[in-house]
């Protein structure tokens, strides 16, 4: 076992300041209080759920038909034993495809309309009119517009990811442009518009863009069930929808939980990746 010189909190701050990489178990050890709190909250959540089902709670919300956590876990075991990988793969590809195209286009158009009034006048209005349309409403058109069901599904996850990324990028750029001091510093050093954009506007917009990407990733999962209603035989969302159609309740909840888990996990990954590009940021929430 390696020596545990990170057990003291002062050492920990020193380490994080130096940006050394810690092993997972070390992190858990250091954050043990936080970790225990999080674990407790999840356990309490499941206990409450089980309890409400057990007493057949029925006041405003009806828990009589809600499957219990144990039933959901059984459904999950069954699902795992029955070649789950095709479903995972199909869904993950759809989400990642929609997210990547959504973020590329969202960031690109967001940078344009955030920094140019003319482009904003031309592009923002139609985009804004399309924005409130929910993913479900796109289903018929997605079927009509795309050559096959698969690309229609990509389109719907794309719509989910695109808008939050677009809007946050646009607002972040506008915010950076309003910081006259930063622009003036660049101008006085001799930067032209392109250099101002590349070295000042984009880096100072990164935190906003990052928030958009995290929300966008979550939204892509959000739209997955909708997308997989279109057609297909595979996918977590499809599985959920199919279970609803044949009135099998535990797999519905299982599908919901799986989408929640994968959505949270992938948002976390996106957050970590974007943080990697912003090493200058140090956030302390306890010092307010």
């Amino acid at each position, binding site marked *: 076992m390696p020596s545990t010189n990170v057990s003291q909190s002062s050492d920990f701050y020193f380490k994080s300041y130096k940006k050394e990489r810690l092993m997972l178990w070390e992190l858990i050890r250091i954050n043990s209080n936080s970790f225990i709190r999080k674990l407790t909250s999840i356990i309490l959540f499941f206990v409450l759920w089980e309890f409400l089902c057990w007493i057949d709670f029925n006041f405003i919300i009806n828990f009589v038909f809600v499957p219990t956590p144990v039933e959901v876990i059984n459904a999950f075991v069954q699902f795992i034993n029955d070649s789950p990988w095709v479903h995972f793969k199909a869904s993950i590809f759809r989400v990642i495809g929609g997210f990547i195209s959504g973020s590329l286009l969202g960031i690109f158009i967001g940078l344009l309309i955030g920094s140019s009034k003319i482009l904003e006048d031309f592009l923002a209005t139609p985009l804004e009119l399309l924005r409130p349309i929910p993913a479900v409403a796109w289903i018929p058109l997605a079927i009509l517009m795309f050559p096959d069901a698969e690309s229609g599904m990509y389109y719907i996850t794309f719509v989910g990811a695109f808008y939050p990324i677009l809007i946050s990028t646009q607002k972040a750029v506008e915010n950076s442009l309003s910081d006259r*001091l*930063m622009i*003036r*510093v*660049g*101008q*006085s*050093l*001799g*930067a*032209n518009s392109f*250099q101002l954009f590349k*070295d*000042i506007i984009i*880096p*100072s917009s*990164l935190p906003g863009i990052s928030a958009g990407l995290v929300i966008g990733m979550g939204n892509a999962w959000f739209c997955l069930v909708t997308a997989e209603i279109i057609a297909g035989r595979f996918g977590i969302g499809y599985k959920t929808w199919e279970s609803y159609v044949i009135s099998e309740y535990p797999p519905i909840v299982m599908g919901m939980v799986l989408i929640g888990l994968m959505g949270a996990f992938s948002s976390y990954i996106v957050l970590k990746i974007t943080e990697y590009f*912003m*090493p*200058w940021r*140090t956030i302390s929430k306890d010092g307010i």
Partner: protein
Amino acid sequence: MTINMQKTLKQTKTKGKVVIDNISISYFNRNKNVYALRDISTTINPGEFVCLLGPSGCGKSSLLNGIAGFVDPSKGQFYLDDKKIMGPRPEMGMVFQQYSLYPWKTVKENIAFGPSINNRGDESPEKIAMNFLEMIGLSKYANHYPNELSGGMQQRVGIARALANYPDVLLMDEPFGALDSQTRIIMQENLLKLWREFKITVVFVTHDIDEAVFLADRILLMSTLPGKIKKDLKVDLPRPRDKETTDSSRFIELRQICHSLIREESLKAFDKQNQL
């Protein structure tokens, strides 16, 4: 005399003459045209250290921003070495009031930004940045981010960043205003060292009388509403200046002169603001 000879030597040697020709700057505020500056003319010679001194709201920052090319004058023209100033340019470095380092760039990258844009060729931006870091004594912090540095250190980097472009004129907008008095005095002494080394024109805005008298060759005392140059005061204290300079009787005398003039102005400004 020797001072004059030194001046002529500098004039022939260096660039950086700033001509302020009949400048007025006005702002539109609540449908009223408010003059921040009115009919200002003066010439700042190459290598000269000029302080713009006045109470807050006298338009000294407007004048500096005008020279820098950030604000267009409503009348008159600024010239740098007999060329019209049409906008910000790398021949004029600027040090700002607030900490204006880019938080996403390391200290070294902040300083290297100007050289990497202007690309003068002979030395790599990295090398220039490291040279300047050594000069300001912060080599150890090359790869730190600005938020890891103290206020005084950040402002030293800010000055180094402006100097790294090898400008002919250095414009400084209350650069030490946010520092504690101990740090401020050290920063002033260091600034004078850098100024001697670079033989550069400095236009320094401040409302601190001691600072102005300690640093400047010439103090332009400004009056308020509209801003005008009330007095063009030669500071004939010997150089190099250090702690003892501030104890000399001439220093105290000059400070006294500035003090009474400024007090007059502050009172006037107070009254006018009440009338408005």
